[in-house]
């Protein structure tokens, strides 16, 4: 029973990681941009959410409805203002740009919020759980997981069957040829990043209600997203979801075996995949 419970908790944790990983996979898949500032954006949005809830005096449950639109706007502006200038065949300029952005964001957040840890309290809701057979499952993690599943399905279907999805895939395959087919590639890139950072708005809410956040926490979030994306296959949407589940399960199962092993066992699974199937589990090649 201990292990079944660990498995379920791991899947639920994976739901949170999936929200980080989906945006990263989308940006990498469409623009070959590895966004080093991904984790810092989660923290920025989380801190903004905590502050806004305090200042406006609204229920914390309102936060995601503020954070997702803010993420969309931040993502769009980031792509239009900075990243569209560095989308090239060569990945180095975008790495340097997002690395610089990550450092700038961390310092900015330290200035504004200092190094204290903060969180969003949902009161009774955060400890509420339901009985599923022999297991008790938290309502909140279950909601996070359900949201991640729905998001993955929507993104997958949108990419496959909509006009926007076709334009996105075309721009990802060959930006110049997409332009020659009437696709505004830079506009498509801006929308992709807007979606990616918009998802981080939801992730930020989940992060802030689940644990505490502080300005320097971005790095760890980046690593989990990165591991999930690599495990699934760079740029692959359902792969990112699968990768997030694997990282989540590895962490929880590891920590049940020995409380010190949680994070480490996630990294070990990542290294194993990197060694045995470097192109990722879901990649076609």
């Amino acid at each position, binding site marked *: 029973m201990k292990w079944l419970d660990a498995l379920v908790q791991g899947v639920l944790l994976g739901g949170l990681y999936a929200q980080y990983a989906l945006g990263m996979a989308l940006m990498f898949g469409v623009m070959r941009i590895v966004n080093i500032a991904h984790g810092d954006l989660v923290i920025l949005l989380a801190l903004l959410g905590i502050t806004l809830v305090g200042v406006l005096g609204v229920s914390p449950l309102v936060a995601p409805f503020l954070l997702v639109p803010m993420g969309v706007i931040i993502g769009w502006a980031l792509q239009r203002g900075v990243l569209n200038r560095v989308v090239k065949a060569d990945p180095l300029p975008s790495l340097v740009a997002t690395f610089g952005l990550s450092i700038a964001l961390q310092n900015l957040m330290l200035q504004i919020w200092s190094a204290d840890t903060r969180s969003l309290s949902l009161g009774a809701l955060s400890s509420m759980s339901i009985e599923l057979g022999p297991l008790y499952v938290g309502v909140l993690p279950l909601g996070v997981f359900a949201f991640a599943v729905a998001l993955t399905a929507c993104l997958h279907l949108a990419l496959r069957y909509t*006009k926007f999805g*076709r*334009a996105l*895939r*075309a721009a990802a*395959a*060959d930006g*110049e*040829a*997409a*332009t*020659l*087919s*009437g*696709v*505004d*590639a830079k506009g498509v890139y801006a929308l992709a990043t807007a979606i990616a950072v918009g998802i981080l708005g939801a992730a930020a809410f989940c992060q802030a209600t689940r644990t505490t956040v502080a300005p320097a926490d971005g790095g760890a979030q980046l690593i989990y997203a990165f591991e999930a994306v690599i495990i699934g296959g760079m740029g692959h949407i359902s792969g990112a979801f699968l990768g997030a589940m694997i990282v989540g399960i590895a962490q929880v199962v590891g920590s049940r075996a020995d409380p010190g092993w949680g994070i480490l066992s996630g990294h070990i699974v990542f290294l194993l995949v990197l060694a045995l199937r470097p192109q990722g589990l879901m990649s076609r090649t």
Partner: protein
Amino acid sequence: MRAILKVRNLCAAYGDFQALFNVEFEIAAGEVVALIGANGAGKSTLLKAVTGLISPSAGEIAFAGESTSRTPAHALVRKGLAMVPEGRRLFRGMTVEDNLRVCLDRSRTDVEQALRWTIPRIHELFPVLKERRRELVERLSGGQQQMVAVGRALLAQPRLLLCDEISLGLAPKVVKEIYQKLPEIRAGGTSIVIVEQDVSLAKSSSDRLYCLLEGRVTLSGPSCEIGLEAISRAYFGAHS
């Protein structure tokens, strides 16, 4: 006759290297024009400047009577300027059908219903694409891929179709099959520019012909009136 494309005094450069010098180039509505020249003469550069993929260093380009300098490349496509790029440049990882639909999704709307290119019409033009519509484009043979590239450009409902070396690397039979479709494409009122290495094919399939040499137009005129000797001089330069 009304000109669909007018290029005046066009110069273009890649960094310090000037690839086009004062090029004058004009296409009348409904005309098929061949553009020939040796490797590196600047043919693709001219087409890229026309479609807005590169910005010229001097000169003017007018498409359908309007200067193109302020219109981004993707918007020009929606005004009816389509190109089959050199090397096909299909969207790998996408099916034949999706490759075609990308262009159809955002094509010019002010086209008469009867003249509109649709996916069924592309299937009539190249029946093999119907059979293989659900396959990934990279699984197709070179000739079939070229048909997808032509079909994709046609779905933009072009007034002017620019074809950059569609015969490159294809078997003669396939080249013939694709070139046989040009009259049908033209019948809908579309003007066509073909860049072609095979000079006699270029000559026989066009109304007029331009020859580029090291970035300059060295010859232009009606294809049927130009002799092979004049072409050879314009193609290789006066010294050979």
